[in-house]
C-alpha cells in the first residue's frame, strides 16, 4: 500500500513546492515598497494614459499605479472605505464622475493651479471632481453620399430620409446614454422618446461594435452616417489599418436644439481615503498643466480643457464649433431616465 501511494505523495510535494516558489517570488516582486506613489482607479484603458503618467514620473519621481476596470470601481472604493489605497478615480464620462460623487467616495480639492486651469462648468459641486479633457459627440458622414449641410442637428437623425442609413453603437453605452441624457435635459422625456424611436427605425443594422466600427461600416457602405466621439477621427487616421475608414467620412458638428454640439468630459476625482493625498494633487495639477494637456491633445486628439493650450492641428482643421454648455451634472442626473428610454424603445434589438 505504501508503495502504491508514494508516487502520489512525491507528485503532490513537488507541485506544491514549485507553486510555493513561484508565488513567493512573485509576492516579493510585486510588493516592492516605493516611498513615492499614487494609486489610480481608472475607467480608461491604461495604454491611453500611460504616456502621461510616464511624463509625470519623469518629472516628479512619483510612481503611478493603476487598476483599470469598467464596472465595480466605485463599489470597491465604497467598500474599502477609509482604508482604501486608492487616491484618484479617472473616468471617461460625466455619469461615472457624478456616480462617485453621489456615492460619497470623493473629497473636494482646493488648488489654485486647478482652479486657474479648469473652467467652473467642468468641475463638480464644491470641486469634488475635475474635468481633464472634452470630447464632442459628432456625426461621421460618408463623403460621397451625404451633402455638406444635409444634416445639422441631432434632431435631424429622426428624419425619415435617413431610413436604413444610420449606424450607432449600443444605446446602452455611456456615450450614447450621455447624448440622450443631454437631450432629455433640453427637450424633455417625451420628445426624446419619440426621437430615439425614430432614430431606431432609421438604423441600417442592429447596434453593435464601438464608435470606430460605425465609421468603418460607413466606409464599407453599410450605412451613410454614424455617431461617434470626436477623438476617434484622429486616432483612426493614425492607425494604418483604420486610415481608410476615416478618409471616407466628413466630421460634422450637429447642434442639440438651439444650443450646440453635445460635449462630454473625461475627468478625475480625489478619493475620500487618498493615502497619498499630496502626490495625488500633484498628479491632478500636472494633468491640468500645459505639458499634459498638450499630450492629451496631440496623442489622443481630445480637446484640452485648459484655455490657451493649442488643439491638435487636425482638430483645428475640423474647425471651431459651438458646444452645448449645459450643466454636466444635469446630464448625469438623467442617465437613469435615458437607460429606461433605451429599454422601452428596445433600441438594441
Amino acid at each position, binding site marked *: *500500500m505504501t*508503495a*502504491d*501511494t508514494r508516487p*502520489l505523495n512525491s507528485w503532490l510535494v513537488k507541485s506544491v513546492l514549485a*507553486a510555493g516558489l*513561484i*508565488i513567493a*517570488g*512573485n509576492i516579493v*516582486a*510585486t510588493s516592492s515598497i516605493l516611498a513615492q506613489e499614487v494609486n*489610480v482607479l481608472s475607467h480608461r*484603458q491604461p*495604454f*491611453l494614459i500611460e504616456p502621461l503618467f510616464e511624463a509625470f514620473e519623469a518629472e516628479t519621481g512619483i510612481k503611478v*499605479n*493603476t*487598476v*483599470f*476596470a*469598467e*464596472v*465595480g470601481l466605485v*463599489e*470597491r472604493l465604497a*467598500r*474599502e*472605505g477609509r*482604508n*482604501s*489605497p*486608492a487616491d484618484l478615480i479617472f473616468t471617461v464620462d460625466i*455619469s461615472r464622475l457624478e456616480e462617485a460623487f453621489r456615492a460619497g467616495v470623493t473629497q473636494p480639492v482646493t488648488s489654485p493651479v486647478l482652479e486657474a486651469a479648469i473652467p467652473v462648468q467642468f468641475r463638480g459641486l464644491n470641486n469634488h471632481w475635475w474635468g481633464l479633457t472634452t470630447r464632442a459627440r459628432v456625426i461621421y458622414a460618408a463623403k460621397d453620399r451625404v451633402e455638406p449641410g444635409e444634416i445639422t442637428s441631432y434632431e435631424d437623425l429622426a428624419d425619415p430620409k435617413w431610413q436604413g442609413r444610420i449606424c450607432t453603437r*449600443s444605446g*446602452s453605452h*455611456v456615450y450614447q*446614454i450621455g447624448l440622450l441624457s443631454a437631450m432629455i435635459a433640453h427637450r424633455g422625456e417625451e420628445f426624446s422618446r419619440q426621437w430615439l424611436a425614430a432614430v431606431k427605425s432609421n438604423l441600417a*443594422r*442592429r*447596434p*453593435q*461594435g*464601438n464608435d*470606430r*466600427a460605425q465609421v*468603418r461600416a460607413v466606409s*464599407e*457602405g*453599410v450605412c451613410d452616417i454614424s455617431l461617434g466621439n470626436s477623438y476617434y477621427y484622429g486616432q483612426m487616421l493614425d492607425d494604418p489599418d483604420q486610415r481608410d475608414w476615416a478618409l471616407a467620412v466628413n466630421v460634422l458638428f450637429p447642434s442639440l436644439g438651439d444650443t450646440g454640439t453635445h460635449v462630454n468630459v473625461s475627468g478625475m476625482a480625489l478619493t475620500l481615503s487618498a493615502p497619498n493625498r499630496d502626490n495625488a494633487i500633484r498628479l491632478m495639477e500636472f494633468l491640468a498643466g500645459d505639458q499634459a494637456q498638450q499630450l492629451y491633445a496631440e496623442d489622443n486628439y481630445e480637446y484640452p480643457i485648459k484655455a490657451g493650450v493649442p488643439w491638435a492641428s487636425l482638430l483645428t482643421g475640423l474647425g471651431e464649433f459651438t458646444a452645448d454648455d449645459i450643466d454636466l451634472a444635469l446630464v448625469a442626473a438623467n*442617465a*437613469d431616465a*435615458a*437607460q*429606461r428610454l433605451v*429599454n*422601452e424603445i*428596445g433600441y*438594441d*434589438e
Partner: protein
Amino acid sequence: MIKLGALARTFAVIATALIVAMPVLAVIWVAATPTENIWPHLIETVLPRQIMNTGILMLGNGIGTSLIGLGTAWLVTMCRFPGRRIFEWALLLPMAMPAYVIAFVYTDFLEYAGPVQHGLRALFGWQSARDYWFPEIRSMGGAWIAMSLVLYTYVYMMCRAALLEQSVNVMEASRMLGRGPWRSFSTVVLPLIRPALVVGVILVLMETLNDFGTVDFFAINTLTKGVFTVWLNMGNAGGAAQISLVMLTAVVGLIWLERRARRGRGYIQGATRAKPLPGYLLTGARGWMAAIACAAPIFFGFIMPTFILGRYALTRLSDISSSDYFLYVANSLTLSVSAAFIAVFIALVLAYGVRLHTKTTGFVARLTVGATRLASVGYAIPGAVLALGVLIPFAAFDNALDAKMRDIFGISTGLILSGTIFALIFAYVVRFLAVAFGSVETALGRVSPTMDMAARSLGASPLRTLFFVHMPMIRGSLMAAGILVFVDGMKELPATLILRPFGFETLATHVYQFASAEQLADASLAALTIAASGVLPVILLSRAISATRSPSRKFANSIGRRVTLTPAG
C-alpha cells in the same frame, strides 16, 4: 471519542463550504437591499427579450457542445481510425482559447473588411455591402459557434473520462445479446455516462451565463448584458445582483431536475476493467470521415484562431522586450496555479464530506450537502458580480479589524485581505470550484462504496481511507480538476479587473485593455500566450484522463516488481 471526531470533521466540511459560499451569500445580501425596484420596468421592457435570448443561447450551446463533445469523445475512445492518438489530446486544445478571443478573431476574419469577404468581392466584382448577402457574424448564430467551439471541451473531457472507465463487459454483453453499435450506444452506454455528460453540459451552461465578453461583442441582449446595464447606467448594483440570482436559480433548477430524473439509480461500475477497450475499426472512407469530424473542432477552435492571432503577434514581437510581458505571465501563473491547488483541495474535502453523508438523512447531512451545493454555484454568477461578493466580506473584515485595532492600540492595520493577491486567489477558487468539484465528485462517485466498507472495517479512519484508498484511485481526476481550474484561471477576467492590487496586470487584463478598444493587433501577443499556456496542461490533462484506463496495469506492474525483488533482497 469517535463521535467527537466525526462532529469535528463535519464541522470542518461545513465551515469550508460556508467560507467558499460567502461571496454568493454576499450577492444575495446585495440583492436583498437594492436602491429601487427595477423589476416592473424591466418586465415591461427588455426582460422578456433577454430571457428569451439567454434561453436560446443556452439551448444552442448545450446542443452544440453535446454533439461535438460527446461525438468526438465516442469516436476517439471507442473507434480506431487515422490520427486518433493525436485527436485524443488535441481535442482539448480549444479549452485554452477564451471565447471572447474566438469571437474577436472570427469577426475580424469574416466581417466585411476581412479576408473572406474581401476575396468574395474581388472574385465576383461586388462593390459594397449592399451588393450581396453574407451571414452576420455578430449574431446569435455566431455566438453559438464561437462559444460551442471552445466550450465543447468540457463535455468532451467528462464524456471521455466516463467512456474510458466503462466496463467492457457491459458493452460485450450488449453486443452478445444482439445489439448493434448504435443501439448499444443509445441504450447501454449513454445512460451509463449520463452523469458525466450532464456535468459537462452544466459547466457549459454556467459558462454561458457568466460570459459577458462574447455576448457584448456579438451585441446579443442577454440577461448578463442586462446585469451590466442595470449596474452601470441605472446605478443599481442591487438590481444587478437580483438578475444574477435569477440566472443562478435557473441553473440550480436545471441541476435539481436532472438529479431528480435519475434519483435512486446508481452508476457504480464493476471492478473488472483490466481489459483494453476493443474499439470499432473504422476503415477507408469511414475512418477518414471520423478523422475529419475530430479535426474540424480543433481546426476552427484552436488552429485557425491561433494562426490569425499569430500573424498579428508577429508584428508586435517587440512588445516582449519592451513591456512587462514576463511579469504578466508570472502574475497569471501565480494566480492560476495557486487557485488550482486550493480549489482541488477544497473540492476533495467537500465531495468527500458529502460522500460520508450519503447514507444519512438528518439535519447535519442536509446542511452539509446544502452548504456544498451553495459553495459550487459561483461559476454561474457573472464574474464582476461575484467580485462584488468577494469585496464585501473581505472589506468588512478588514475594516472591522482596523477599527478595533485603532480603538484598542491606536494603530491602523489597513486592508489586510482586500485588494491583495490573496483576495484574487480566493475569488478564482470561488468562481472555479464548480469545475473542480464536478470532476472530483463524479470521480469519487465511480469509486465503489465497497472500497470504503473494506477500508473502514479494516480499521482505517475516514481520513486515512481518503488518503490511501480514494486519492490514489482518483489521482487522474484530481489532476484533471486542477488543470481545468488552471486553464480557466489563465482566462479569468472580470473578477481580476475589479479585485486586483494596484499596478497588477495579468495576461487576460492586458488583452482586455486592447480588446475593449477593439484593437486586435495590440491584444494578439498576450492572447496567444494565454492559448499557448494551455497547451501543455491540456496534454497532461489528456494523459491524466487516459490514465484512468490503466491503474490496474500499473498496480500489476508494481506487484510484479515487488515479487521479483523479494528473493534478491
